[in-house]
């Protein structure tokens, strides 16, 4: 079966985020970019499904500026077979990303679509669920285990307080949580081979999707920085302060 994996180019998770002085956003100039960590897990899961003989072809798609091709190439080096780049320099919000992915799903007709549960920039946690709703598919969100059996996929989900397993009819959407797998590193020969794998380029207009955003960001600020408080001499003073000063116990 064919598996479609969506990946997003985001600020590298090791980079300390700085808000721009004019409060219009986060400073991305000369900042290291990388594949969103949850998307890496999505690629890894697809590759493992292929290694098990469950998946026959892995198509990786990314929406974003020209440089997003780097992340597609990374996914190809990890084991995806071909790439689709939906190229735009405009901001693409979750609903519009889901509409673009829906158009790709209609062209490619995958049995399984795997996405990260959220991107670590906007932290929305929406696109997979929206794609599932728009395409009329079931969804296994925050997955920690994915098992394909016949025309169903069993997804174990990380929910508040524990785990929950659902069975979904295929085709279905899965979004990955951290504990689904540990992504591998691409080997140098595979990085070289990935350069020759096919990569299609298209625009949102080619897919017939209006990507005008519905949400406008009025300002972005640094979080209120906490001031270091006081040092207490002993446990008795600590408990006294918590009870009588902070009033939290």
């Amino acid at each position, binding site marked *: 079966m064919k598996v479609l994996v969506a990946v997003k180019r985001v600020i590298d998770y090791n980079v300390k985020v700085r808000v721009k002085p004019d409060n219009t956003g986060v400073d991305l100039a000369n900042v290291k970019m990388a594949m969103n960590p949850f998307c890496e897990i999505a690629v890894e899961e697809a590759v493992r499904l292929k290694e098990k003989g469950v998946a026959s072809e892995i198509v990786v798609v990314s929406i974003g500026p020209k440089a997003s091709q780097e992340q597609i190439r990374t996914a190809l080096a990890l084991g995806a077979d071909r790439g689709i780049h939906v190229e735009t320099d405009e901001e693409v919000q979750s609903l519009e990303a889901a509409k673009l992915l829906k158009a790709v799903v209609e062209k490619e007709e995958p049995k399984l679509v795997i996405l990260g549960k959220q991107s670590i920039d906007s932290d929305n946690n929406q696109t997979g669920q929206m794609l599932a709703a728009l395409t009329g598919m079931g969804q296994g969100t925050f997955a920690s285990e994915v098992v394909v059996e016949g025309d169903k996929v069993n997804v174990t989900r990380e929910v508040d307080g524990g*785990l929950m397993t*659902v069975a979904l009819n295929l085709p279905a959407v899965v979004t990955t949580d951290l504990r689904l797998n540990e992504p591998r590193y691409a080997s140098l020969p595979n990085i070289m081979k990935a350069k020759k794998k096919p990569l299609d380029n298209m625009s949102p207009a080619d897919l017939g999707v209006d990507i005008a955003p519905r949400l406008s960001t009025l300002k972005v600020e640094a979080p209120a920085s906490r001031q270091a408080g006081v040092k207490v001499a002993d446990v008795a003073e600590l408990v006294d302060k918590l009870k009588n000063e902070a009033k939290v116990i």
Partner: protein
Amino acid sequence: MSILVIAEHDNSSLKQATLNVVAAAKAIGGDIDVLVAGENCGAVAEAAAKAEGVNKVLVADNAAYGHFLGENLGELVAEVGKGYSHILAAAGTVGKDFMPRVAALLDVAQVSDIMRVESEDTFVRPIYAGNAIATVKSSDSIKVVTVRPTAFDPVAAEGGSAAVEQLDVVKDAGLSQFVSEELAKSDRPELASAGIVVSGGRGMQNGDNFKMLEQVADLMGAAVGASRAAVDAGFVPNDMQVGQTGKIVAPQLYIAVGISGAIQHLAGMSDSKVIVAINKDEEAPIFQVADYGLVADLFEAVPQLEEELKKVL
């Protein structure tokens, strides 16, 4: 304006997060209805009707909603919610699962995990794991919003007397089935929504020593968390991890024991109202964010803390 709040519950009791979300709805202003969707959830509806500020409780009681499957809840809430100006739910794993489906079915954007209401269409939310705070404005006719419960003080659970109305809308999308559930058996509150969290780090030295923290936590009705270092060292399971890649918590009181305070950890807990750090290294970065710092050996301080708490609680 009219606001639909989707109750969070387990079919037998209303979760407190619902009261926090009603508080967010009050901050927006307008009539507040609460939708209780579940199976045999009459007691939940009665509890919701008593919550302060609730105008009406709508009940969708059907096996299709018993396990809160996102496909079914999404269709139900999109149907019931289309007459409202706002649809709100807690940003727990249930709300995060079904709300984007609601937004997509209504062809509107969703605003996730808000921590403040600026006006009826403008909300404040964390991005980049809380390293930046965005103020966003929605231009859609229906605002679909998930709410970070810990960011809003709950409304009173008692005192209201809303009417309860049964809905006969049954939406079974037929796309998914519940198979099984494995919920951690614990009398302690859930980490993500607990009012008090006691967390241990590498300084705990091993998993057995976490029992000390559990005893303190049980005295205060607190949840127990851990730093990534403690999880990576194998002291405790990874569902206890607080931090950027673990659970984001914002309790009234966060007690960090033997935690140095790596950026990764601070990103997950620095929105806590009051932070206490107990660490023997007075240079530990955790003290830079702590309201109350105690430089001490945790193996002496934690048993003392237990004794002192017994005196005052």
